[in-house]
């Protein structure tokens, strides 16, 4: 898991409207990480990210100026954005991931787990907690039912997602399915891509049904 031990510290931007939280996360990250920028609202965060080009962005889901959604939409393409949130409202989380975030962590996540997750996110790996995997699975089941059984996910992708939801690490998923850990990561990335696409299509369908008739 932590195989990618870098010499250079991982460069982090923290965005949260509560200074006490930024202090807390900074203290937790300690060595191995360098906080290169901080912001307390979305617009500021986007500027700081563009100026500093960090390895990973830790961003509160609900912030002034459009929250983590705005940051993920604006920077999800170039930066690795991880949501740190106390919210677990289903739609918020799916929207954040669809907007371009690499995943989310609940704010009570213990320090070591937080560090491990951010290390992986810094190298572009999705931070897929079991609860997020379960949400995404449910979402795709809904999509399949709505489009009369057409499955957007391949069998293999579904299998990967189910194992992650059950609490398997990527390494364990790989061992279970006889594939490389890297392949598991690729599957997860593809799943995120499909989620992104389906959310977009859903928005378009909604717009078509409700506005242009």
């Amino acid at each position, binding site marked *: 898991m932590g195989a990618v031990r870098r010499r250079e510290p991982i460069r982090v931007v923290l965005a949260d409207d*509560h200074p*006490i*939280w930024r202090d*807390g996360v900074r203290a*937790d990250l300690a060595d191995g990480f360098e906080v290169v920028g901080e912001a307390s609202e979305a617009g500021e965060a986007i500027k700081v990210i563009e100026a500093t080009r960090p390895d990973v962005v830790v961003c509160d889901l*609900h912030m002034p100026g459009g929250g983590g959604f705005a940051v993920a939409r604006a920077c999800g393409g170039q930066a690795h954005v991880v949501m740190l949130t*106390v*919210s*677990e*409202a*289903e739609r918020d989380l799916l929207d954040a991931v669809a907007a371009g975030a690499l995943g989310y962590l*609940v*704010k*009570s996540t*213990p*320090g070591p787990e937080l560090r491990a997750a951010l290390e992986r996110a810094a190298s572009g790996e999705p931070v897929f907690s*079991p*609860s997020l995997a*379960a949400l995404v*699975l*449910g979402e795709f*089941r*809904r999509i399949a039912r709505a489009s009369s059984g057409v499955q957007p996910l391949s069998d293999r992708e579904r299998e990967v997602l*189910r194992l992650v*939801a*059950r*609490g*398997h690490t990527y390494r*364990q998923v790989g061992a279970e399915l006889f594939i490389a850990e890297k392949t598991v990561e690729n599957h997860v990335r593809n799943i995120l891509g499909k989620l992104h696409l389906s959310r977009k299509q859903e928005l378009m369908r909604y717009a078509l049904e409700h506005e242009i008739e």
Partner: protein
Amino acid sequence: MGVERSLLSGVAAFRWVAWAWMVTVVLVLRRDLARPWLAGALVALAAVVTVAWTALLRSNPSALLRPAPVVAELACGIAVVVGDGFAYEPGHVFGPSQTLGVIWPLSGVLAAGVILGPWAGAVAGALLGLARFADALANRVHEFSDRQILSIASSVVVFSLAGATVGYIVVLLRGAREEVAEARAREGVARTLHDGVLQTLAHIQRRSTETAIVALAHRQERELRDYLFRTRPSRLAPGAADLAARLRGAVARFEDTFDVSAEVLVADDLPALSAAQVEALAGAAGEALTNAGKHGHASRVIVYVEPENDRGVFCSVKDNGTGFDPATVAEGVGLARSVRGRVAEVGGRVEARSTPGDGTEVCMWVP
């Protein structure tokens, strides 16, 4: 009040249109009238009721939400239907021509449905339909053909259906409004708590070194989270909500007993479950949790439940503890007896997977 009020505004508009139609019919077909003064009186009565309802709806709408105004309007409606028979030349009722008392009286039925509910709407409609019989008698029809009886009967059915439908729509709308209101209230609470209590609880857990305080903050956070973010039980299939609640209870007890963090993930599209299935799965998952706490040296456990092939359920309990070697250890006696026994009782099967150093996962399938 919101739903009823907007529907009553609709009924008020209907009343005006129907009244205008009544005036038109009286004026255009004035030569069919035997007693023009009576027709005028009926039009005036309808006008008084129409104006009074509109005025009340503007000034004091809650006064309308009682039986008295509904009964009064319905009585006026029946009077208009019966008076119609007296106003026209004999035999006009079943003739091909329009009569003044066909549409306007329906507003009383609609009002009854909106204000007093579907049953009252149905009864009001039936009464108005039967009034057509009196209408025919007043119109000096003494012998009824099958066709005419059928015509009156169909009025009874159609009017009572109209009243019941309107009443039912109100019931549905009211339910929808209550759900929206509850969801909004939760959202408001969630927003407030998000920036306050949940942040504080999370902060305590991250920064405190006192294990008892961390455990307390964790438990509080879990309870709050369950309230705020879990799928509402009413949206789950019967039995599925019970299973989710039982599993959460089991995990809460497990966390308190073993000081290990655990999470319950229940899909919101589970099929309906019988009480026996819920009992078996919750009991078996509880046993698997205890096993993980006692023997596994785990720091994290996940209980996951999802639908399996439309009607079945899959449930897994996975820990990240030391695990065991299935080849050498006679797989936990407790696990075998209690978990397998419970699941087998409802026709399900169990599989325990483990590798030394890599945790244990207990998988259960219930058809």
